[in-house]
Each structure stands twice: as structure tokens, then as C-alpha cells.
């Protein structure tokens, strides 16, 4: 059995893809995440929002294996029912075995490779297997050729979705910013993920690019891939997400549908910066029905 695999069901029901339980992450004396629990449901877009420094990216780095959490359990359930404990997997095994792909806040493309090559590198594991770990591929067996053709077809499919077909043979570093964002998402999708983690995908996009991004994310969700995203742009969050989790100082302060979260007085307080003792007042006002 691969490390991190469990066969017993850990209280996860079929429609939950990721369950984070009692996650804590400490950097020296700083508690970046403090006892955080959340769930992401299959086939939904879950947004993780919160003020700067709330620990959103740290949560992402724990889920995708770039940090080892100090405490807590991260369970991912794949479609076939297999469960993986993400905190026990090595970073490269999380995309490979558990099917979790991610993008980065500051875009990390292979800028010297062409757009097409970027998408082919993402299919590394499938192609390695097809090439018999290079040895059979060096002989040029037909099975490997078919796998290569299939990988190019897949790359074309995502190039088309991300509206990058015209730039396929250009170096990735040569693309404009918005196209680089879309390429990073397309590249992540080429790893065949079940959960796609996007770290601020709309940052720095103009309204038109932002709208195109929303369409792309909806298409991805309609293919059955669940999405977890960090976002600052509230228009994006409110428009596309099915479920919103709000963090502040490493703790969850609200969890629910976009409408619920939008009207949660603690969220408003966190975003507008109300003093702690005023929070009670805000809540009291809310109870009086004094909504804006």
C-alpha cells in the first residue's frame, strides 16, 4: 500500500473531496494557522478568502505538500473511493497520486519552454510510464508514439479552452500576463487533477480577462473537477464560488454560501477593520435587522 493511503473511511461521505481537520502550522513562534477545519465538496468551487496575512496561502502550501503541517489531518478522497492523507505524502506525490494540482500566486511557468512544451511537461508521469521509463521510448515503440499523440491532443484541448492555440509555439515567457495565468491553469489541468487549487487566479487581470477566467473555471468545474481558490477580487468570489470559507489570523471566522458570508457581521468586521469590542455592537445591530 502506498504511503498515506487509507482504506477505512474516515467519516468522509462521498461528496466531500477534501477534509481539513484541526490543521495548525507554526513558523517558530508564529502561529500561521490555528486549529483550522474545513471541507471542500466534490464538483463545487470553494473559495478561501480573508485579509492579507490571514494564512490562506499557508493552507494551500500545506494541502499541496510544500509545507508539512505542525498538526492536523488532511484527507483527500478520490473518485474511486481511495483516500490519501496529504500530510504524509511527499510534495510530488500529491499531484501524482492524490490528483491535486495547483497554481501559484506569482506565476511559475517554464518561461524558456514553449506553451505546448509547458503542457507536455505537465503530463510527465503519464508519458514516463508510456515510454517505459525512457528505455522503451528510445526504441520508438508504437505504444509510446500513440501516448505522445494522445498527450498532444490533450494539450490542444486545453490550449483551446484557455484560448492559447495561436500562441502554442511561442515561449511561455513571451505571453502577456493574463495569458500566462490561463496557461498556468491549463498546465495544472494537464496533470488530470480531481482537485484544482488556484492561488489568486484573478490577481492583476483586467475586467475582460477576469470574465474569461470565470468562464474557464466554470468549464473546469463542469468537467467534474473540484476547485479550491484563494481570491481577493470579491466580484470573482461572489460570482463563481459555491461555498466560501473566511480566514482571519489563521482561524476560520465564517463558512457557508456566498450570500451567507457576505452578510456575516464577523466577516464585515474583519474586512472593514472594526475594533474587537465593536464587533459585539455590529452583531447586535445585525440582530436588530439593521442590514445595509
Amino acid at each position, binding site marked *: 500500500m502506498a504511503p498515506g493511503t487509507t482504506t477505512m473511511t474516515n467519516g468522509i461521505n462521498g461528496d466531500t473531496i477534501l477534509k481539513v481537520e484541526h490543521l495548525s502550522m507554526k513558523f517558530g513562534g508564529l502561529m500561521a494557522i490555528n486549529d483550522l477545519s474545513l471541507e471542500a465538496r466534490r464538483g463545487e468551487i470553494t473559495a478561501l478568502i480573508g485579509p492579507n496575512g490571514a494564512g490562506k496561502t499557508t493552507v494551500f502550501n500545506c494541502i*499541496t*505538500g*510544500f509545507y508539512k503541517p505542525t498538526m492536523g489531518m488532511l484527507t483527500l478522497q478520490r473518485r474511486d473511493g481511495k483516500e490519501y492523507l496529504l500530510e504524509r505524502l511527499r*510534495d*510530488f*506525490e*500529491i*499531484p*501524482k497520486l492524490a490528483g491535486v*494540482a*495547483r497554481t*501559484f500566486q506569482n506565476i*511559475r*511557468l*517554464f*518561461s*524558456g*519552454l*514553449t506553451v*505546448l*512544451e509547458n503542457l*507536455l*511537461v*505537465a*503530463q*510527465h*508521469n503519464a*508519458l*514516463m510510464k508510456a*515510454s517505459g521509463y*525512457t528505455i522503451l*521510448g*528510445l526504441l520508438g515503440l508504437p505504444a509510446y508514439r500513440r501516448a505522445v499523440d494522445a498527450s*498532444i491532443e490533450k494539450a*490542444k484541448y486545453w*490550449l483551446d479552452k484557455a484560448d492559447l*492555440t495561436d500562441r*502554442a*509555439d*511561442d*515561449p*511561455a*515567457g*513571451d505571453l502577456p500576463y493574463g495569458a500566462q495565468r490561463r496557461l498556468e491553469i491549463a*498546465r*495544472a489541468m494537464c*496533470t488530470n487533477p480531481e482537485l484544482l487549487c488556484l492561488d489568486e487566479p484573478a490577481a492583476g487581470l483586467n475586467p475582460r480577462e477576469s470574465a474569461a477566467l470565470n468562464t474557464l473555471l466554470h468549464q473546469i468545474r463542469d468537467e467534474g473537477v473540484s476547485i479550491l481558490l484563494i481570491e481577493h477580487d470579491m466580484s470573482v468570489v461572489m460570482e463563481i464560488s459555491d461555498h466560501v470559507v473566511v480566514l482571519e489570523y489563521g482561524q476560520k471566522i465564517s463558512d457557508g454560501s456566498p450570500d451567507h458570508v457576505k452578510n456575516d457581521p464577523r466577516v464585515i468586521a474583519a474586512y472593514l477593520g472594526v475594533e474587537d469590542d465593536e464587533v459585539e455592537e455590529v452583531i447586535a445591530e445585525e440582530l436588530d435587522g439593521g442590514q445595509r
Partner: protein
Amino acid sequence: MTASTETGHPNVLAKAVREGLFAGVIAFFMFLLFVGIETYQDINNTLVWRTRWGLLAVFVAVAAVGRFLTVGFIKPHIDRRKLAKAKSGVLEISENKSFFHRHFLKIALIFLVLYPFLSLMIVGKQGSLKYVDNFGIQILIYVMLAWGLNIVVGLAGLLDLGYVAFYAVGAYSYALLSSYFGFSFWLLLPMSGILAALWGIILGFPVLRLRGDYLAIVTLAFGEIIRLVLINWTDVTKGTFGISGIAKASFFGIWSFDSGTTNNFVKAWGLSASSVYYKVFLFYVILALCMLTAYVTIRLRRMPIGRAWEALREDEIACRSLGINTVTTKLTAFATGAMFGGFAGAFFATRQGFVSPESFVFLESAVILAIVVLGGMGSLTGIAIAAVVMVGGTEVLREMAFLKVVFGPDFTPELYRMLLFGLAMIIVMLFKPRGFVGSREPTAFLKERKAVSGSFTKEGHG
């Protein structure tokens, strides 16, 4: 604008005079101690010094006049040409390359295959010993080493300063196994490669967590450790004396090149005795090894593993986020690079007939790395050109006896090899900061294969 670009304009001339004088002053102080003063030993073996003001004056004058001419005449001339070109609106991108440019690789390959015969025809048997051995074989060994290192440095972006260690492993594998057990070259050639690859992995495991400068330092240390082991493990390696009398390679076991054997190549073909046949044979062996290296590199680049190497050079974190095991990817790069170093080492041992730790000093690693960097990291053609320039240049320097007429009878041109090296590096880096071939060929394309400009590729960071 026009005033400043006009030649002979007082402003430009004044500036040229000023900069010329300035360059002269700098040159004076720079060369004052190096050139102006000479130390030598007199009859009593004491160190005394004398001055060489005349030579110093020549150096200063060259610097000052050179700067004056550059600023006053050459630069305005270039600027005016550029301006004229920009005005006429002709871009320098031309789609039609010359015949030579398009078929460069084919022409080069045909030339290489015919090279021994051409030299035999032109300078005869005795004369072509030098051209086949000192130029042909020597350059091709470095081409192969540089192509091997290119996999590690150019593709995977791992800075390896101890590459010569794998060359040494290959050479000593052949030397020891052939002299202790009498195995033939053709059996030991693949074995040397495998042993070198094994050492590549052994080195790789502990150090691949390191990145950038730290990796460079540890690989440097590894190269030195191998050399020190070879020096001090005298029971096996005979230390600094080295191993001599290493067996020659045979013609695939059919003919031998050792004189006095029954199946001697020269006797079998009824030729007059000469060592040139063996050299020509070796030339084709190393040429075939080089072609093998190039073929494997080109094929691997188009395989998933080769793409993963290049992706690793571009961004290691992104690689891991895509499920690529960076440790095995780095190890395969190290092992593959080391294997070709091992092949080259075994060939070197059989060609020299003698190996000693002296051949595997750090300078060799530096030379091979310099060839890779000068050629343009990742480009096989560029690296081959760089090897011809650097190694061939050194050999050419040996031939320049006429320099003795200029610099005096005790001038030994090959001592200035490093000066040539440095000069070539500076010139190439000034005009071609990405090496001779700065662009990268994509490994896959949808519509058209467009070279990727060097400004997008990264050098790797560990």
C-alpha cells in the same frame, strides 16, 4: 543627434582625446608592475629586478590610441550605419539563409568523416599524425566531454564543477581493469560508462538537496576527492606515477594495432608500418562516440525525461507541483552526463596508453565548463564550435613559431593559453552573452518550429 554622430566633430574628438588619455592612465597603472618591472635571477641566484619602460610605453600607447580611435571614429561610424538602416526600414531578420548556413551540420559531418583522408592526402603519413591526433582526436574528446556536461549544466541546470571526476573514473576503470584482468577495450568501454554513471548517482544522492552555489562547491570537492584518492591509493593506482602500458584498442577484436602480433592490422593489409593507421582508427572511434552522445542527447530531449530536465532548469518548484520527482530527475541527469564522461575517459586512457592523476585536475573541469558556457548552454552545435575554438586555439598556439620572432626566443606561446581563454570568454560574453548559439530549439510544436530566444530561458539555480 546628428552633430554627435558626425565624425570629426570637435565634441566627439574632444571626447575621444579625453577618453584616450584616461585609458592611457589606467593602462599605465595597471601594467606598471606587471610589464614595467621584470624580475630575474642573476648568476648568484639572487632575485633582482630591472625596468622595461619601453615595453610599458607600448602597452600604454596601444590602450590610449585604441580608445581614441574607438570613441572618435569607429563608434560614430557604427552608429551612423545603424541609423541609416533604421531609416530605410529594413529589418535584419532574413528568412533566406545561405546554403552553407542551412546545411552547416551536414557539411560539418562530411568534413569530419573525410578529415583523416584529407590530411593524409595533403601532408602525408608523418605530417598527418599531428593533424589527426593533436587536432582531430583532442578536439573531439573535448566535444564529447562538453556534450556530456551539457546534459547536466545546459539541460538540467545543475552547476557541476567536478565533471572531470567522471572522466577520471572512466579512464582509471579502463586502465586498471585492462592491466589487471586483460579485458578488451570494447568490453570495458561500456563498463567504464556504467561505472562512471554509478559514481554520478553516488555523488548525486547526498548533494542533490543542495542548490546553486552550494551544489557547485560540493561537486568541486568531489572532483578533488577522486583525484586525491587516485594520488594516495598507491597500491592500486600507483599514485602520481600513473598507469602506463595501457592496452591499445583493437579493430573490434579482428585486427590488432600492437606490433608483433599475428593479426596485426598493418601486416594484414600489407601496408608499410606507421602509427598513423591507429590514430585514424581512434579518430573514427571518438567520432562515433561523439555521434552517439549527440544522438542520445537529441532523442532524450524529446522524451519526457529530457523535457523534465529542461523544466527543472526553468523552475524546480513548478516541477514538483506537477508531480515530477525532482530527485530522480536530477539523478538521471547526473548519471547520463557522467556516463558520457566515463566513455570519454576510457577512450582517453586507450589513446594515451598512460593515465595519471595529473590529467584530471580542476582546470580540466573549468575548461569543459567554459566550453559549455561559451557554446551556449544546451546547444550541441554551439558547444562543438566552442570546443574547436578553445582546444583548437591552444593547439594552434603551439604551432605559432613566428611569435618567437616578435616576442623573443624564450617566448613559449602555449603558456598564453589561459590568456587566450580569458580573452575569448570576454569577447564572446560581450557580443554573445548567451554563447555562440543563444537560442533554444523547442522539442515539440503544433504549427511551426520557432527557436526560443535565450532571453526567456533560465540558467538553472541548482
